[in-house]
């Protein structure tokens, strides 16, 4: 069938009225108009796709301005918000399309859209993932304000699920994946704790660190190179429980998006990825809530209107009960010693629709992890005690004001604070002496920024803005206090220069230009300045992304991005995310991290829109990353040392390819991802100057995530992952060292580990299968969901760490080193129960 015939057929097909459920016809609407996918006759005849009567247009389809640009002399602008009809929440990324003109736009993060047309009437198709598309017809006698309420789609297993097919071709942004929380909630999780960041690890180009942890290693980057934004402000340590859980409670999150490359100019400050999470805004119409209980933690969410249709709130809280579960055993065990661990997090948000043009938001997030132990020793002279405590906290407060100026300009003003603190303290209470040691580190940012979306006409979408961040880096305050009758009082701060302040300013402009009906460009520049202790770093970072539509089913995309990051993290360990990792600024001696990334790829729709295929290749060059020098360790603080003296800087490269195929419709949905990546680091002062594999260099990475909607009430989900074994730095040889005594010659020998090149060993390949079953039942007063399953279902003994240990400790004559593997997670069953009211 020729392309012309197809096109004609589709146009004709779309003019004939058919009486179909709206959500059933949505695919063809999208196919016909969103991305001009050529629907086969067979599909139409067989009923796989339908041909709606949605277009009522009073214009010449062949108007020269259609599809490319607009004569805006007589232009009218349709603008407004797209919202959830039930809850009133703004919908991000909803498509607003004028099919007759073959032009459209998407809503921004706040649900706003603006579309300028040279027309006196228009039909618009408004659609969004999981919602029933809506078609509106309006006469245009001037600029039009149009707020759209989309109804959530009713899932019919025998029908086709509503999806925004073609958006991947239409969007200019490459290397971006957006996941709805609904998708994330279905997948099995460690201990049943649904984890947004761990789901991102299943995407190609994103590698997990040590098993079970939430660290994201995006295209060879480190976790500190990810900008994790919660309602617009960064969260520095998104980890609970040493990284085994992320701090984000999925009940409080609306959606999450990840950008791995081709960064638009509006983003800055990190090298490797942007993870944006939006908190739910709260239902404007009705009160509702959820409560869930799992093996590790329980949570609840409450939301509802403060003023109906005008103001709403949402509160979500979660707490673990590891400490409570351990307490009875400690009591039974007797003694005065106690230890425990707990975490909690609290998310709250309120918004107020002040007027049609103004809306304000206030969101607060806080989390706290605390591990503690206290040992008490009794003697005839009295009691002594030793207590240790390790804790870390996140706090973000964000206030935003959305303002619509005219019909083509949207302004978001944000003022926010983010704070991360970690503290380790130990107290030894003697009979006549108390000694207290504490180590405090963290970072606090005060953020202000204004962002403008200006949409003068359909060929340009201009974003510009500016902002500043005042950073306060607490790079480790180590103090000791001692008091008592037997000692000289002592109160010393060993690291008086622990506080560093920096000022970061940024401005950007980017323009998404539709050059022709096939070619679009997003070009921009991000400029920033960082001032710290009389030192000023300035940077101009060009960004460009290009999209070529190669026919109706395929789009080619390319991008270039230059990034700069003014913060480093000094990490404590290679195996887990420790809360005592130090966030440190660029300084006189330590330059900011920089990266350039080139990426190119193809997106294609397959199987009549059933599958989305994305293939991308990238090359990333990173400069001025830092590591501890040989002979230093994170925990070994010496008073005379400044952290800057203990680090060395180097560079790294990462390159590879990614394949991602996704199925969003039908009973079985999910995705498969494959990454082929090579990542290395090179430091003049490390490894003899020779390049070495990055800690999480992983040549092959495969992930499979499948949901099977078996019945209305029953869903199955499966995850399978495979990865090349982690690169580890282990000793090659052993010798015997002498722990010498200067007076007595009863010296003892000790095995010495002789290390070879960094990360020259590979752990065995990693693979794992997780399964979950979800049973849902509608009660009179609530919907309940029982979920159960298993993490690592076939009990693969994956290596958590491998280390060289002494085979026969204590016997110097026979001591030798052997390798020992620790498996952290054998098969772990889980069950969770959730109520939605």
């Amino acid at each position, binding site marked *: 069938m020729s392309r012309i015939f197809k096109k004609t057929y589709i146009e004709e097909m779309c003019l004939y009225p058919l009486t179909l459920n709206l959500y059933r016809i949505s695919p063809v609407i999208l196919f016909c108009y969103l991305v001009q996918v050529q629907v086969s006759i067979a599909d139409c005849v067989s009923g796989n796709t339908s041909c709606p009567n949605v277009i009522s247009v009073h214009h010449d389809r062949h108007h020269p301005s259609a599809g490319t640009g607009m004569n805006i002399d007589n232009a009218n602008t349709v603008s407004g918000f797209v919202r959830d009809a039930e809850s009133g929440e703004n919908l991000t990324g909803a498509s607003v399309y004028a099919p007759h003109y073959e032009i459209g736009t998407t809503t921004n993060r706040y649900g706003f859209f603006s579309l300028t047309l040279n027309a006196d009437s228009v039909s618009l198709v408004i659609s969004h993932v999981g919602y029933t598309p809506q078609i509106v017809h309006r006469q245009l006698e001037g600029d039009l304000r149009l707020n759209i309420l989309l109804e959530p789609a009713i899932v019919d297993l025998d029908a086709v699920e509503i999806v925004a097919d073609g958006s991947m071709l239409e969007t200019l942004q490459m290397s971006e994946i957006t996941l709805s929380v609904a998708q994330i909630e279905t997948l099995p999780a460690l201990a049943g704790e649904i984890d947004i960041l761990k789901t991102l690890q299943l995407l190609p180009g994103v590698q997990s660190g040590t098993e*079970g942890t939430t660290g994201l290693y995006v295209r060879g980057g480190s976790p500190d190179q990810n900008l994790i934004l919660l309602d617009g402000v960064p969260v520095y340590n998104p980890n609970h429980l*040493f990284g*085994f859980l992320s701090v984000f409670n999925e009940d409080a999150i609306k959606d999450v998006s990840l950008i791995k490359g081709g960064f638009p100019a509006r983003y800055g400050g990190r090298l490797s990825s942007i993870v944006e999470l939006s908190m739910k805004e709260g239902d404007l119409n009705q009160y509702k809530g959820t409560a869930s209980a799992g093996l590790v933690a329980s949570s609840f969410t409450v939301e509802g209107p403060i003023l109906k249709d005008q103001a709403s709130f949402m509160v979500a809280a979660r707490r673990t009960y590891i400490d409570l579960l351990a307490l009875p055993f400690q009591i039974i065990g007797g003694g005065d010693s106690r230890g425990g*661990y707990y975490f909690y997090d609290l998310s709250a948000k309120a918004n107020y629709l002040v007027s049609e043009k103004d809306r304000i938001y206030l969101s607060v997030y806080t989390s706290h992890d605390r591990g503690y132990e206290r040992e008490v020793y009794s003697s005839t002279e009295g009691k002594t005690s030793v207590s240790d405590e390790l804790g870390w906290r996140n706090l973000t407060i964000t206030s935003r004001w959305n303002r619509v100026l005219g019909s083509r300009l949207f302004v978001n003003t944000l003022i926010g604070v983010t704070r991360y603190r970690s503290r380790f303290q*130990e107290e*030894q209470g003697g009979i006549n*002496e108390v*000694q207290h040691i504490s*180590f405090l580190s963290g970072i606090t940012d005060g953020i202000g920024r204004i962002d403008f979306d200006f949409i003068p006409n359909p060929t340009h979408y201009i974003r510009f803005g500016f902002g500043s961040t005042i950073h306060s880096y607490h790079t480790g305050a180590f103090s*000791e206090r*001692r008091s008592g009758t*037997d*000692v*000289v009082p002592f109160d010393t701060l060993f690291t008086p220069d622990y506080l560093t302040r920096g000022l970061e300013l940024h401005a950007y402009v980017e323009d998404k230009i539709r050059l022709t009906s096939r070619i679009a460009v997003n070009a921009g520049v991000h400029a920033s300045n960082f001032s710290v202790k009389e030192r000023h770093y300035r940077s101009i970072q060009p960004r460009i992304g290009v999209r070529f539509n190669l026919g109706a089913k395929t789009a080619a995309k390319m991008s270039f991005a230059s990034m700069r990051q003014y913060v480093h993290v000094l990490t404590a*360990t*290679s*195996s*887990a995310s*420790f809360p*005592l990792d130090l966030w440190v600024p660029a300084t006189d001696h330590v330059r900011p991290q920089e990266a350039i990334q080139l990426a190119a790829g193809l997106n294609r729709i397959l199987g009549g829109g059933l599958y989305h295929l994305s293939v991308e290749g990238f090359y990333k060059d990173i400069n001025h990353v830092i590591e501890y020098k040989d*002979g230093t*360790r994170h925990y*070994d603080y*010496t008073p*005379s040392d400044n952290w800057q003296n203990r680090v060395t800087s180097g560079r790294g490269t990462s390159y590879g390819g990614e394949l991602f195929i996704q199925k969003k419709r039908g009973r079985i949905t999910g995705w498969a991802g494959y990454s082929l990546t090579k990542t290395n680091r090179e430091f003049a002062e490390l490894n003899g100057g020779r390049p070495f594999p990055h800690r999480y260099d992983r040549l092959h990475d495969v992930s499979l995530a499948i949901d099977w909607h078996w019945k209305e009430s029953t869903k199955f989900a499966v995850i399978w992952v495979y990865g090349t074994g982690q690169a580890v*730095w282990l000793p*090659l*040889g052993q*010798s*015997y*060292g*002498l*722990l*010498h*005594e*200067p*007076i*007595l*010659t009863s010296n003892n*020998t*000790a095995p*010495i*580990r002789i290390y*070879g090149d960094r990360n020259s*060993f590979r752990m065995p390949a990693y693979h794992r299968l997780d399964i979950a079953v979800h049973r849902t039942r509608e009660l009179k007063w609530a919907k309940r969901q029982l979920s159960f399953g298993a993490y690592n279902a076939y009990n693969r*003994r994956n290596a958590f*760490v*491998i280390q060289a240990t002494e*085979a026969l400790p204590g016997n*110097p*004559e*026979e001591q*030798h*080193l052997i*390798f*020992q*593997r*620790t*498996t*952290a997670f054998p098969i772990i069953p889980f069950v969770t129960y959730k109520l939605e009211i």
Partner: protein
Amino acid sequence: MRRISILLLLIVLGCETMIEIDPPEYETELVATSHFSPDSIWSVTLHRSASIGVKQDVSDLYVEGASVKIISGTTLIDSLVHQGSGRYKSSASKYPLPETSYTLHIDVPGQSRLQASSSAPPRTLITDYGIELLGSIIEVPEPLGMYRIWIEFGDAPGTNMYSIGVYRFRPEQTLGQSVVPDSAYQREDRFVSIGPGWYCGFQSALEIDTEFRGGAGLGCEMLAVTDRYFDGQKHAWSATLELYTPADESYGKNELLLVLTSYSNDYVEYTRTLLENRESGPFLEPFSVYSNVDGGLGIFAGYTNTTVILPLTE
């Protein structure tokens, strides 16, 4: 702070298994070890390193038949003779001198030469010292007295590290061989307080650690300090410790030896890194041991003892 690692280990509660890993090819190296001081004759231990995972008796690794020489400038000071178990000693009973740079040459047939240089620090100038009985604190099982001891010494400019050991003559209980003339000294370690800035052990003194920082040091065998708080100045140190009173006849002599040791940087760095290397764990970065031996591994490092005698009174 390493308790954090323990806490994390408890959380993951993993299963540990011994596994076979084929390590990359490893070529063994010669390892020379010598800690020398003006109070002891020259001595060097020589052995070979081994591949990891190989169960091997230490004695199989000792190297015999090597030529081991001590050189100062261009002058041959001594040729050491193998005395068994890879240990080479001065046959001429020669002692190192403080503040003199020495070079160690080791030639093993078929191997390239091992070479290292170091010196022993000067003797420390002690300007004051003393001991006093603070009182008798307990009578059971033996008479025990609480003593205060003190010492004042001058610190040379630059980074220096010191340790103090307190020893007591006790011929019936020889726990070690001493380099001091009477070879029957026992370490006293019942410290109640060890003085501000002083730490128990080398590692704690070099770092900020949470153990025995100037507080009670019961059981502490070596008190150590770096001169970061008194660089180039006089330093007064005092401590209190419990001692069995002189009435106990098993001691023979009513005196304590207080030994103040100063260390070369090579000695300090080797010991520090050796201790770190031994602490290898799942959540600790690998740590290589410092070596100043060219052509091989190991250490050639000097230290100097300065001793004062403290008379014990009842």
